[in-house]
């Protein structure tokens, strides 16, 4: 399924206002169509900043990026139609039910009527949420919120989906369902860009990973190939610790 580069990032730099140090320092990488690409790194490495720039939440200080051939600075609205975003925090309205939240976000993607209802029902069915459709988000468990949060970014069948640590703080069952669904989406041709702290998860899921630290890409490749290149380490987690160090991060 992998093809030409669907995301091209060149010398991307982001310096937040009031900060002396760049959050990302000249990141360059290409992500191919149909990949499950993992952005891995410790806290403050620059993963969320990179995804936020690609999603149109921030402008880069320097550098450029293209998504599906479109420059991110001049094609915001066109890009927003083909991407789906699952933010790190649960971004839903607590006083609305799961169904109402998804109806609203689906409408914002331009979906409506029977088609939208089918998409929501499909999402509920995949993630076992049928019973919780009419429950207010505020009354749902963390796992249910995460799953609804994920469905909200997928309703419009995006070409590319960005997931910022989608499995943080949920039970194993919910995590397995989410990861299986991401694989299924990828099989259907969706490009998945995903950040995580879970190395084992990334090793199993991703076709390629980039390890980012202090705003720079310090290693990139297929997880199995990376492990093979470093025979002294038994898995991706050990390579990650070797590359990023064992110091605690903020």
């Amino acid at each position, binding site marked *: 399924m992998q093809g030409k580069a669907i995301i091209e990032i060149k010398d991307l730099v982001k310096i937040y206002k009031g900060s002396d140090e760049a959050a990302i320092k000249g990141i360059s990488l290409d992500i191919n169509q149909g990949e499950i690409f993992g952005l891995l790194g410790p806290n403050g490495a620059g993963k969320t900043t990179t995804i936020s720039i690609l999603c149109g939440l921030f402008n880069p200080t320097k550098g450029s990026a293209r998504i599906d051939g479109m420059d991110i600075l001049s094609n*915001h609205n066109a890009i927003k139609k083909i991407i789906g*975003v699952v*933010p790190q925090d649960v971004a839903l*309205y607590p*006083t609305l039910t799961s169904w*109402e939240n998804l109806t*609203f976000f689906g409408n*914002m993607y331009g979906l409506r009527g029977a088609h939208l209802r089918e998409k929501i029902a499909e999402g509920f069915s995949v993630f076992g949420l049928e019973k919780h459709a009419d429950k*207010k988000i505020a009354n749902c468990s963390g796992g249910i919120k995460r799953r609804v949060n994920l469905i909200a970014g997928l309703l419009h069948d995006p070409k590319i989906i960005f997931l910022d640590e989608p499995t943080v703080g949920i039970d194993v069952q919910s995590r397995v369902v989410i990861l299986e669904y991401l694989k299924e989406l990828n099989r259907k041709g969706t490009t998945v860009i995903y950040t995580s702290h879970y190395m084992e998860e990334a090793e199993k899921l991703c076709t390629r990973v980039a390890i980012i630290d202090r705003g720079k890409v310090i290693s990139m490749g297929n997880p199995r190939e990376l492990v093979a290149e470093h025979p002294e380490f038994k898995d991706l987690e050990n390579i990650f610790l070797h590359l990023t160090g064992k110091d605690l991060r903020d």
Partner: protein
Amino acid sequence: MFKFFSACRKESLILVRDLAGLIMLFLMPMIMVTILALVQEQGWSSLSRDPSIPVLLVDEDQDTLGAKIQEGLKGSNVFKIYTSIDGKPVNREIAKQKIAKGEYNIGVIIPKGSTGIIRHKVQVMVTQIVSGIMMPVDNPFLDIKVNDSINILIYFDPGIKGTFKYAFMSTMKEYSMFIESSMIFSSFNTELRKMFPQYRPPKMDYRESVFFTEIFPGGKDEKAIPSTTQHNVPAWALFAMFFIVIPMTGSMIKERDEGSMIRINTMPVSYFTIFMAKVSVYAVVCVIQFILMMLAGRYVLPLANIPSLTVGSNYMGILLMMVVSSLAALGFAIAVGTIARTHQQAAAFGVVSVVVLTALGGLWVPVYLMPEAMRSLALWSPLNWAHVGFIDLFLRQATIADILPQVFKLLCFFVITISIALLYRRVKSPLNN
């Protein structure tokens, strides 16, 4: 367009789900309008209703002046006269102490011999006039000068309102002049009787010969009488309407904090669509709020014996003013909600600025009573524009054409505040929606 309606539906659902918040949005302003109208009505109209201001009267004179002043103050229906406390007659010292402690508001000391001085002065004056007629040349009476004067002491509680002080002084002056005139007339009669024993004093008609008729020109209907209700109800209703800044900015900041706005920012929908949906839903809230407050003015206040609110007959004009006033309030709220980073910032700035705009707009103190510099500033308050518009509709039977300048100003304010919000977002946030 359906994105806009969907956002409206979402806003409405969020509002309706917060039932307690919704009840407060509607109920609190009604309670505020009713209570403030009651308080202000009592404050102002006590000048013409139940006597409520306690006055200590120390009548050392024990003659006509003291009696007449007491009679006059009682008759004013504003002041309640006390000449004794707990059965003990009030003297100068007691009066001074009680006023100093704030137990009474006003103390009047009529010095001993006051009536005698007036009587003497009047007698001298009448004698001079009468003898002047009888003896135009070499009249020894004409050289008599009376230098005695009466000094009535008045103690005021430092906390007393200027308006009451003014009302009291006017009453005192009016009655002292009336007493002096009566004495002059009486002395003339006495002198004339001395000169002409057959003289019989005429029965004077003491009724006032000058009357004042109050007319409030108001177009077709001159029955709409300015009252505290007519001023206060729209004033407080507008004040409450602009307080929409609190729930509105709260909703905006909550949306940012909860992360929903981040998700929306990644979607193919403009910020303009999202906040116009918010404005539309909250505009309905503002209009309902305003109507409820008008109904309170119309039907609740009369239950407390306060004049009912008269709204005139230009209902389309009233609706137009309600809508544009709501838009002005909401534009302001959108600007504050966009610029403020936290609830605390929004609440502190929102509340203080609404209070300032209200005071500046002449909603508490009429613009014509303000100092010159403040008067010109008042013309820049959106609350002033809205208030003037409503007063024109309620009391002057204004047509829609008459209120167009106010409508235009309020719409401009809305456009400017919304532009500030959009511009701030564009400059501060790189999102180019």
